[in-house]
C-alpha cells in the first residue's frame, strides 16, 4: 500500500456581465467570436482595465475560504506562447494573490477533512480551440473571462476526497453566487497532481500531472487509474516518470509529454493596472454578505435532529437551505423537513426550476406546515393542497379557506354532528354499549368524516366519539 498525495488546481469562471479586463460580454455561447473585445484579441495598443465585480467576487470567495487577503490588488503577467493566448501573456496574480493559505472543510464518508489551500488567484481565461483532423480553429469568446484559480496543498489522499472537495467547492461557488460552475460548459475545470509514496518515505514521490479535466467522475477515474498504474510500477521497483498525462474516454490515462524542465513564465507586475487598495470598507461589505456555509448548516440540522440524509439534502443548495430555515422559523421542524424533502424538492426537480422560481413562498409553506403540525389538517391533505396550489399558482392557505377544506375544530359543532350520526345508527351504539365492540369507534369516525366532507378534525372527532359512547355506556348501567 502506498500513501496517495493529491493536489488540485481548480479553475472556475466567475459570473460577471463583462470580462476581466475588457468590457466585452462574459456569456456562454456557441456562436464563435461574438463576445470579443480589442483586449481579448490582443490587438496592438490595447490595455487591460480590471473589472471591479470580478475583483470583489474573488476576494469574497477567498474570504469564504478563510484565506489571508491582500492589502492591495495588483496583477502579474505570465509570459508564454500558445495558440489560445493572443496577447502572448496571461494576466494573473503571482506577487499578491487575492487569497493566501486558507482551507475548506469537507465531509468525506461522515468525517470532516480539512483541505488546506496554497493560494487563490484571479486571472483570465484563454481562447478556446476546436480541433479538426487537419487543423484547429480559434474562438476568442472565452478569452479574458475572469477565472479564479484555487490551488490546494498536496493534502488530498483519495479519489473520494478529491471528488468531495470538488463538489463542495462547486457548492461553495453557488452558495456565494460567484459562478454558475457548470463543468459541462467548462466553467469549472481542474488540474490534478498526483504522486505515491511509502508510509516510511519522507519526501513526496514523482508527480504526474493531468490537466483540464471537466467532469468530476473523470477526476475520479483518472485518480483511480493513476493509483493503480503507479502502484504497479512501484511494486515492480520501477520509476514513475514525471510527466503530463491525459484521461481518455476509456477511463485510462495516457502520456502526453514528459516534463523536460520547468517553463520559466518570466512573471512581472502588470504595469498597466495600478495598485488599488483593499479597503476596510470593502472587506466589511463582503463580510456582512458572507452566508453561513454548507457544512455549518449541515451540522446545525443534525443538531435539530434531522437524519444525515435530510441534513445533507437540505444544506446542499443555499436557496433551499435559506427557504427551509425561513419555514422552520415559524413552524415545526419535523413537518417542515417532511414537506421540504418530498413535495418541495420533487416539484423543483419536476419543473426543473430552482427554489427562487417556485410559486410557493416559505411563508405559504410555513402556514401549511403549521396547520398540519397542529393537527388542524392531515399531512395528506396538506400535501394535496400544496400540489394544487403549485398547479394553480395560488396561496395554499387561501385554497384551504376558500374550498372550505379548513377543518371543523369547534367542539360543539362536532358534538352536534356526532350526536345526529349516533341517532341514525342506534344499532352500532348498542353494539358498543352492550357488547363492547370497539370497532364502533372507527365506524363513527368514518361516518363523521364522510358527513363533514372530510372537514372534521379527526383527532377531536375521535375524542368526542369515544367520550359520547362511554357516556352512553355509563347511562345504560
Amino acid at each position, binding site marked *: 500500500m502506498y500513501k496517495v498525495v493529491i493536489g488540485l488546481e481548480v479553475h472556475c469562471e466567475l459570473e460577471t456581465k463583462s470580462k476581466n479586463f475588457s468590457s466585452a460580454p462574459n456569456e456562454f455561447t456557441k456562436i464563435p467570436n461574438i463576445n470579443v473585445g480589442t483586449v481579448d484579441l490582443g490587438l496592438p495598443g490595447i490595455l487591460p482595465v480590471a473589472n471591479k465585480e470580478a475583483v470583489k467576487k474573488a476576494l469574497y470567495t477567498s474570504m469564504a475560504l478563510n484565506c489571508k487577503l491582500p492589502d492591495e490588488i495588483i496583477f502579474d503577467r505570465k509570459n508564454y506562447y500558445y495558440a489560445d493566448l493572443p496577447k*502572448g501573456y496571461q494576466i494573473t496574480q503571482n506577487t499578491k494573490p487575492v487569497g493566501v493559505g486558507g482551507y475548506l472543510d469537507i465531509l468525506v464518508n461522515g468525517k470532516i477533512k480539512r483541505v488546506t489551500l496554497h493560494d487563490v488567484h484571479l486571472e483570465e481565461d484563454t481562447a478556446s480551440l476546436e480541433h479538426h483532423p487537419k487543423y484547429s480553429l480559434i474562438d476568442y469568446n472565452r478569452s479574458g473571462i475572469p477565472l479564479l484559480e484555487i490551488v490546494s496543498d498536496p493534502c488530498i489522499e483519495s479519489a473520494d476526497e478529491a471528488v468531495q472537495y470538488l463538489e463542495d467547492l462547486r457548492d461553495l461557488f453557488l452558495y456565494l453566487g460567484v459562478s454558475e460552475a457548470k463543468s459541462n460548459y467548462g466553467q469549472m475545470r481542474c488540474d490534478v497532481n498526483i504522486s505515491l509514496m511509502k508510509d516510511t518515505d519522507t519526501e513526496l514521490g514523482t508527480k504526474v500531472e493531468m490537466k483540464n479535466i471537466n467532469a468530476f467522475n473523470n477526476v475520479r477515474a483518472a485518480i483511480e487509474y493513476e493509483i493503480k498504474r503507479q502502484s504497479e510500477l512501484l511494486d515492480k521497483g520501477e520509476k514513475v516518470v514525471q510527466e503530463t498525462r491525459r484521461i481518455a474516454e476509456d477511463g485510462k490515462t495516457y502520456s502526453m509529454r514528459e516534463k523536460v524542465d520547468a517553463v520559466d513564465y518570466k512573471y*512581472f507586475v502588470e504595469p498597466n493596472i495600478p495598485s488599488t487598495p483593499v479597503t476596510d470598507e470593502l472587506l466589511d461589505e463582503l463580510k456582512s454578505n458572507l452566508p453561513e456555509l454548507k457544512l455549518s448548516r449541515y451540522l446545525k440540522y443534525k443538531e435539530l435532529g434531522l437524519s444525515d440524509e435530510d441534513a445533507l439534502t437540505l444544506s446542499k443548495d443555499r436557496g433551499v437551505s435559506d427557504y427551509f430555515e425561513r419555514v422552520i422559523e415559524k413552524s415545526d421542524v419535523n413537518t417542515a423537513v417532511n414537506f421540504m424533502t418530498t413535495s418541495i424538492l420533487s416539484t423543483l426537480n419536476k419543473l426543473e426550476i430552482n427554489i427562487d422560481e417556485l410559486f410557493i413562498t416559505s411563508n405559504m409553506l410555513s402556514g401549511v406546515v403549521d396547520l398540519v403540525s397542529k393537527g388542524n389538517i392531515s399531512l395528506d391533505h396538506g400535501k394535496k393542497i400544496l400540489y394544487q396550489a403549485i398547479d394553480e399558482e395560488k396561496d395554499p392557505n387561501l385554497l384551504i379557506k376558500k374550498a372550505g377544506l379548513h377543518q371543523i375544530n369547534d367542539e360543539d359543532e362536532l358534538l352536534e354532528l356526532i350526536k345526529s350520526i349516533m341517532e341514525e345508527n342506534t344499532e352500532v351504539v348498542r353494539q358498543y354499549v352492550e357488547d363492547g365492540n370497539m370497532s364502533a369507534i372507527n365506524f363513527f369516525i368514518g361516518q363523521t368524516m364522510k358527513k363533514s366532507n372530510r372537514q372534521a378534525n379527526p383527532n377531536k372527532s375521535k375524542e368526542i366519539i369515544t367520550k359520547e359512547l362511554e357516556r352512553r355506556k355509563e347511562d345504560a348501567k
Partner: protein
Amino acid sequence: MYRGKSITELRELLDKEELTSEELFDKAKKLAYAFQEDYNSFVTIMDDYKIKRRSDSLIKGIPYALKDNFSTNGILTTSSSNILKDYVPVYDATIYKKLRKAGGVLVGKTVLDELAMGGTGTTAHTGVVKNPWNKTCMTGGSSAGSAAAVALGIVPFSIGSDTGDSIRKPASFCGVVGYKPTYGLISRYGLFAFASSLDHVGVLSRNVKDSAIVTDIIKGKDINDMVTINYDKNLVESLDNDIKGKKLFYIKEICDKSQYTDKDTLKVLDDFYKLLDKCRELGFIVEEVSIDKALLEAVYPTYMTISCAEATSNNSNLTGIQFGPRGEGNSVEEIMFDARTKGFSELIKRRFVLGSYILQKENQEKLFLNACRVRRLIVDKMNELFKDYDGMILPASGGGAPSFDDSSEKLSSKYLLLENHLAIGNFGGFPSITIPFTFSNDMPVGVNITGRVKDDDLVLNMANKIESVTGYKDIYSKVGDIDV
C-alpha cells in the same frame, strides 16, 4: 502662406476665411509629398480630407500628423515594422478619437524607429528618416517622422510617443518643441506598447503654446487606460503666469565642462550657461546641484533593463496569427517562429533576447528588480529636489544631430550622461519639455525642462517664458524653398 505657420496663425486664417480647412489639408498633403522622397517622414499620407464639422476647438480644421504606432481604424498602422506591414486596425486610439472629435485633420502617419524601440530614426521598415536641417544627419527617434514633419513645416503639430526620450530627443535634433506630459495625463489606449510603465503620449510643435493647446484637448481620464488621471488645470491659460522666484536646478555632474573635450559639446554647454543667465534675468533662480554620479550612470542601464523586459512581453502578441503576415509551417509554433523571425529586424530581436534574459527567474532579482530599485532611488532623489526646486533644466543633448556614419544603435560602454538623462522623466512620469535653444555646427540643439508630477501647467509656463529669450521660437527648416 501655409508652411511653418503655428496653430494660432492658422486659426486666424481660418477664422478670417482667408483659407478653408480643406485648402490647409491640400497644402499640407502637397508638402508631405514634396519632402517624402528626401526626408521620408511618412508611412502613409492621407488621400482624403476628413473633418468633424461640429467642433469649436482651436484645432478645428488644423492639419496634423500621427506617429504610426497609434491605432487608427481603417488606416494602415505599421509601427514601422515588417511584422505589421499590412495591419489595418479595427479600432481608434483614444488620442486619435479626441483629435478627430476636436476637428483636427489627419495628414498622415509618421515613420518611427521599428516598434518605437530606437533613438535614431534609421530602423523603420520603410527606410531612414532624414534630418530637415541636414540630410546627412539623423533625426533621432523614435518619433522621427513626427519631428521631421513639424521641422519641415508640413504640419504645425504632430503626435509622438516617448518611452526614454523618443519625443524630446528628436525634438532637440530637429529644432522643434517636444513635450511629454505627466504619466497618465494623456491616454495610451491605442498606442502600440513598448514599455508600459515608461510609455507616454506627447506632442511635437514649433512653439510651447501649440503644445499646450493640443494637450488641453487630448488630456484627461480615459476609461480604457487605468493609469490616466483627471487634470482640470488649463495649460494654455497658465502659460503667461509670472515666474519670478521660480527655482530651477541643473546637475553639476552632467553640465560641468571640465569633463568634456568635444568642441561641439563645449559650445552647447557655453550656450546653455548663457541661457541660464537669461533665465536669471527673467526672474528665475537657477542653481547647480550635485547628484551621486553612480546614480546618474545607472540611468541608461536601468532604462535599457526595464524597457527591454517590458517590450519582450508587450510584443508577444506579434505572432502573425490573428493579424500580421502569417508565417509558414506545419504547427502553430512553426508559423509563429517563421513570422517573428522574418518580421523583426536584428536590433529588435537583440533587445527582446536581452529583455527576456533580464526577466528569467534566475536573473530577475539581480537584473530586473535591481533596475526597478534604482528607478525608485532616482525618482526619490528627483522628488527630493523638487521639494526645493520647481524644475530641472539641462541640455537635451551634448550636440546637434549626429550624422549617419558616426553613430550606431549598439550599446555604448561609455557613460554618456549628457545623452541619456531624459529617461529620468519617464522613470518618475515627470512632465518634461524640450525647446530649441541654440545651433551647433548648423544643427539645432534643445534645452529640456522637467518638473514635478502633475505640474504640467508650471512646466509649460516656465518653458514658455524661456522660449521667449532663446530666439528660436517658431523655427523650421526652410529647405526646398517652397511654400504652398
